[in-house]
């Protein structure tokens, strides 16, 4: 009696599983979503930059979903994770959650170089998940063991250091003190700037690290001022030590001429510091190409302010993933990896922001695309943007683009 009961219940269970399996299978095909992770530091030292970046990436995903062309009508669904920008353990845990629990097909992110490296090494690459970072710029990321899974739409700081040195040379600034935030980003940038600037015949009187999150930077500024340099190069973060250093420099009269790198560019810095920042110069990845202008109008039509650091790059990162999925014909993780370079570079039809539907259609028809996007995407053979930079200057309380390098 007992025995037969078991058989009956087992049979019932099999029937149930089979029935639900059949019931779910067609539904999964029509309404399935492609989940894509977005890992940015929504808390932490660049928290004022990340909402705009995430909104830009989500804008691209929405454009893809609304087109109805991704793998025959799949939706591209963003899943956010917090990289914190500085806490590698927290960032890795967030990425782990996206990869294992949310089963994302690929990841847009991370943002800061240190956490990006640890996510790539500890979870993304081992799990075979593509990462496309819009803003991790450390030169060290060019050479990590990424098995081809790490890409970035932002150029390496090896290039930014060179551009910044060129800008200073052109302006006749040959004598500087450098302060950099004590992490991969700051150190990498300081090194590449050091090499390029010295090669131009410039003199770096002092190069010192600063820690983020301190209450008081007067000792750091005092030492920098004592070096005798007239200009201060700040490779830091605008919500953190970088801001503290500039504020203290102005307060004590140590420096009044500042040179900033991408981590320091943002309107909040000017709002916090005030008029003392007028005349500061800086570099930021980006260009004023047709794509960049188009992105601004696409963004504002989508209710996003596209004019901000790394927003175009974020849009491009998400767009690249969508195009790669389409080119691969599936949201399979390794299939995506195989197609990123193909959709980013020539040959193929050039695709600009707002034309993702067109790109998806071309790929669906078996054609090729060369995604240009907001930042003139062109990936080098290690999978990173070759990079154009805007030279900015603070004029009357706002960053103004002077020229493109």
């Amino acid at each position, binding site marked *: 009696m007992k025995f037969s009961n078991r058989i009956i219940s087992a049979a019932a269970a099999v029937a149930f599983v089979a029935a639900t399996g059949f019931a779910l299978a067609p539904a999964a095909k029509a309404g399935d979503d492609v989940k894509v992770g977005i890992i940015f530091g929504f808390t932490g030292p660049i928290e004022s930059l990340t909402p705009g970046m995430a909104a830009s990436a989500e804008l691209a995903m929405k454009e893809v979903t609304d087109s109805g062309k991704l793998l025959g009508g799949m939706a591209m669904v963003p899943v956010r994770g917090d990289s914190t920008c500085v806490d590698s353990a927290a960032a890795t845990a967030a990425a782990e959650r996206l990869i294992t629990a949310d089963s994302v097909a690929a990841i847009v992110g991370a943002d800061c170089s240190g956490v990006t490296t640890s996510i790539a090494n500890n979870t993304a690459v081992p799990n075979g998940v593509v990462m496309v970072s819009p803003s991790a710029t450390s030169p060290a990321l060019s050479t990590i063991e990424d098995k081809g899974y790490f890409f970035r739409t932002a150029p390496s700081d090896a290039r930014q250091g060179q551009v910044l040195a060129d800008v200073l040379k052109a302006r006749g600034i040959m004598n500087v003190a450098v302060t950099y935030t*004590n992490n991969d980003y700051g150190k990498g940038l300081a090194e590449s700037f050091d090499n390029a600037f010295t090669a131009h015949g410039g003199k770096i009187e*002092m190069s*010192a*690290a*600063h*820690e983020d*999150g*301190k*209450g*008081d930077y*007067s*000792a*750091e*500024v*005092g*030492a920098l*001022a*004592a*070096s*005798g340099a007239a200009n201060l190069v700040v490779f830091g973060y605008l*919500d953190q030590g970088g801001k*503290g250093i500039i504020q203290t420099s102005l*307060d*004590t*009269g*140590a420096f009044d001429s500042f040179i900033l790198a991408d981590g320091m560019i943002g309107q909040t810095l000017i709002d916090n510091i005030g008029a003392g920042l007028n005349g500061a110069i800086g570099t930021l990845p980006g260009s004023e190409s047709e794509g960049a202008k188009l992105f601004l109008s696409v963004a504002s039509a989508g209710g996003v302010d596209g004019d901000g650091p790394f927003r175009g790059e974020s849009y491009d990162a998400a767009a690249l993933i969508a195009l790669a999925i389409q080119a691969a014909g599936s949201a399979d993780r390794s299939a995506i990896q195989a197609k990123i370079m193909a959709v980013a570079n020539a040959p193929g039809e050039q695709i600009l922001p707002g034309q993702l539907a067109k790109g998806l259609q071309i790929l669906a028809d078996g054609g090729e695309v060369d995604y240009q996007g907001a930042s003139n995407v062109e990936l080098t053979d290690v999978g990173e943007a070759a990079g154009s930079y805007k030279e900015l200057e603070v004029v009357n309380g706002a960053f103004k683009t002077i020229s493109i390098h």
Partner: protein
Amino acid sequence: MTDFLDAVVLLTNFVLVPGVTYGSQLALGALGVTLIYGILRFANFAHGDMMAFGAMVVIFMTWWLQSLGVSIAPLPVALVALPVGIVAAIAMSLATDRLVYRFYRRSKAPSVIYILTSIGVMFVMNGIVRFIIGPDDQRFTDGARFIITARGFKEATGLHEGLAIKLTQALTVLITLIVVVALFRFLQKSRTGKAMRAYSDNEDLALLSGVSPERVVFFAWLIAAALATIAGSLYGLDKSFKPFTYFQLLLPIFASAIVGGIGQPLGAVVGGFIIAFSEVTITYAYKKFLRYLLPDSWAPESLVQFLSTDYKFAISFVILVVVLLVRPTGIYGGRSS
């Protein structure tokens, strides 16, 4: 001659002014620690976060007053809000004493239990502050920023070097001076102050003389909380308010109290300035200073910096270790713990 004046101004601007300000802030903090140590006989690790708690209340009060349009320009509104913060911090301290420390006092717990308890209180307080105001930087300064600006000083004197004195720096030093004088008068002259000193020197003898222990403990918390709030608010006004920086301040504050001799109020003040000036003078780069003073041919090429500014906090540690090894009772012969 101008070279000499430039050198003096340079050092004043980057060493003397920041050193005096920072020393005052440390002195106020160390006074609170040393007072609790003298009366309750344990190292109160929660003191840094009590500073953050008091400053937080002051910030909320300041924001509220600012939203009402209250202004006492050129002085910052936070000064008006300060008493509210002090009252809140006192209430918090007394509540903590009632809920946590009194239990251990009555059961005559050894001091290591107190220390561990205070670490627990520290984490709770830390959490409360972050929960309410968040972990970020908060700005609550208003009124004039400078008494002397670097540019104004250069124009007025014609020197190459500027001297800047912020209003908050002057206020810090002034308020510290008033508080320290008031506290010393209270401890020396008033009946309660004498009772506290007696209790601190010899508990049994004080009890025999009719000193009420609960009353002494009550005043110790009251004064410590007030000092913590004043120190925390001044630090926040002058630098920036961020809960984590108060946690970091704990080390230099303890170093100050121990260098001066823990349990000795005068030692806490002296210790505060010793620690502050050690940090500033050791990490300062003297290249420019020496260039003003020395003939050109002797001028140094290197930075003449003894330690990188990265090691600022390490200096407090080193001094702390050296004092504990060489003279554990500190300069003014406090207790050795």
